């Protein structure tokens, strides 16, 4: 079904470092990315026809921070814009849909967050069921611990599998050494959990003639889909991810070989679940960038996966890649994008 869509390409990407604590406002992170994108493409800001950002006011504890972030895009002339209170990967999805309408040929997509100020486990407990879960402070790390235990009990993974995923993100780390660390949320250890960071990711999408008019190597989005599961953990099989599998089918992942995959593995056991759900065998390199366990700029982490895949394809290191983003506890919601280079 992905073939029926208007072709849309990523024509430029920008990524800040993942800062443990960025010394400045979130809008400055956004501005750094936007300026880099405009310089790369030669576009004037007013030539960008649609702008959309993904961020979270609760993350940094700043009501209406999504409005302040627009200062990073430039407060004048007025911006035709939209926002999702989600990772920037979902902003990408909306931008891609917007370009399908045909009247707009360029879009700026941003994901940004300053996670360092808040207590992420308390912030994201607010994302759970407000009657039966949030009052208990059900945080993503604890819930990931429950998913990890379910994987161990099912025989689908071992603690060494978790450590192996973590070790790839930590230069010089060995599985044996990591397994000696103390538990944090048993059976998770601290290195199994991506440390929240500050940062931003952004890209420019183009469609139609605009793709050829802009410099650089276009990377085509040939399919994209996202699916969600119940917010009640008891209604889910935590050892698999039907929503990721369905999103992969919707995005057309299996219609060709996958040379590289960047997965939003924020807790190491998620790599086991996602590899199986997305049908990625051991031959497919997963998270060559280090992945979120090496850098987790919250609300930009998913969009950063798209940036990493697009850059590898643009550089000629891969021809066809998969970018994945997730939202909600235990991989509740999953987005899959397939990116391809020129044929």
């Amino acid at each position, binding site marked *: 079904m992905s073939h029926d869509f208007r072709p849309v390409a990523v024509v430029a990407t920008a990524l800040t470092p993942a800062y443990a*604590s960025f010394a400045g406002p979130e809008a*400055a992170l956004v501005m750094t990315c936007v300026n880099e994108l405009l310089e790369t493409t030669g576009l004037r800001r007013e030539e960008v026809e649609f702008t959309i950002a993904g961020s979270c006011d609760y993350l940094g504890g700043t009501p209406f921070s999504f409005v302040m972030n627009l200062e990073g895009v430039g407060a004048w002339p007025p911006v035709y814009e939209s926002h999702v209170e989600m990772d920037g990967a979902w902003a990408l999805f909306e931008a891609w849909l917007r370009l399908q309408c045909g009247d707009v040929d360029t879009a700026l997509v941003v994901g940004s967050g300053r996670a360092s100020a808040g207590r992420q486990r308390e912030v994201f407990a607010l994302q759970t069921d407000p009657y039966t879960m949030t009052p208990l402070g059900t945080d993503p790390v604890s819930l990931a611990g429950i998913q990890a235990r379910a994987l161990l009990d099912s025989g689908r993974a071992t603690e060494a599998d978790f450590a192996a995923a973590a070790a790839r993100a930590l230069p010089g780390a060995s599985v044996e050494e990591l397994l000696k660390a103390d538990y944090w949320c048993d059976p998770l250890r601290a290195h199994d959990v991506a440390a929240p960071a500050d940062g931003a990711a952004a890209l420019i999408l183009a469609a139609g003639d605009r793709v050829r008019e802009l410099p650089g190597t276009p990377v085509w989005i040939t399919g994209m889909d996202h699916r969600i599961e119940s917010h009640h953990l008891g*209604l889910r099989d935590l050892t698999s991810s039907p929503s990721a599998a369905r999103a992969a089918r919707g995005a057309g992942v299996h219609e060709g070989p996958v040379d590289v995959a960047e997965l939003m593995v924020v807790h190491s056991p998620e790599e086991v679940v996602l590899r199986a759900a997305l049908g990625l065998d051991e031959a497919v390199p997963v998270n060559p960038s280090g992945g979120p366990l090496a850098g987790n700029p919250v609300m930009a982490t998913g969009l950063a996966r798209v940036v990493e895949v697009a850059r590898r394809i643009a550089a000629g290191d891969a021809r066809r890649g998969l970018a994945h983003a997730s939202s909600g506890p235990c991989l509740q919601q999953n987005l899959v994008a397939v990116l391809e280079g020129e044929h």
Partner: protein
Amino acid sequence: MPQPGLPPMRTVLEYPYTRTTGPVIGAFLTGIRDGRLLGGRIGAQVRCPPLEYDPGTGAPADLDPVEVGPCGTVSSWTWVREPTASHPFRHPFAFALIVPDGASTGFLHAVDAGGPERMSTGMRVTIRFKEQRAGAVTDFWFVPEEDGAEPAPPVEGGEPVTLTEQPLSLTYTEPYHPHRVRFLTGLLEGVVTGQRSPVTGKVYVPGRGYDHLERTLMTEEHDVVVADRGTVSSFTEITPVRYHGQKETEPYIRASILLDGSDSPITGVDIRTIPLAEFRVGLRLRAVWKPEGERDISAFDNRSTGGWEGVIDRWEPTGEPDADTRALEEHAF
């Protein structure tokens, strides 16, 4: 990053959420308040907590209540070694998926087991209700079955639970942004620091660390000191309404003041000593600073623009003729 003289700032964000329960969750919470655990039968399955819909089809489902528990079986768990401020216990505990006896699927809740060595998948747990219950999932927790006592019989006859109240409180701690440090240090010294755009020459007070019109980052080299006198560019009289955290009771003025030498007004300035009848756009004012040592910058954080009343005792008319209001039109906010 080191910030001499300014410790990290702390912000507490609070919202008091009140939610209606609807008939299904309402019955569930009423059951908890009364001391029983209710599931809901949908087809062949008993779900706890009960659902308003069939999770397989999404079709609406009326409550077909089934009392479940008080014991259950752990289907997965984690040992929480560092509880957060939102968790039900201050000491380490387990979060677990518990399938209550009589239910088909797991219910996420806390198990107060003492240590992880007492937790295992498949273990039996039993519910423990608090004596005082409001009708919330925080009215109970689970313990290993061998630690449990027979629950007291349910208390009948109370009004149904139809609302939940959940006060939300989040704490944020962070260093002041670098430009904010310089601005606030200036206030403690009795000077107002802005930033001059290297592109347009416009002076913004306080500086944001960037020019938001020209998309240019600004640093210490762009700092400029502006006057502590200026012109009222806009104002409003605020009549306090009651809300969570409200401290004001009497009407007061909030003004925007375009300080001399700047191109953007400072906003949210408290005016308490000039009568409303005498207050107007174009009025010239000067700041009367609090004595050095009594200046308090705690109401300024990385977010808000207000807080001037912590460092400036009051604003006084200078006695100069009013400024031309037409020139202030661009500075209404």
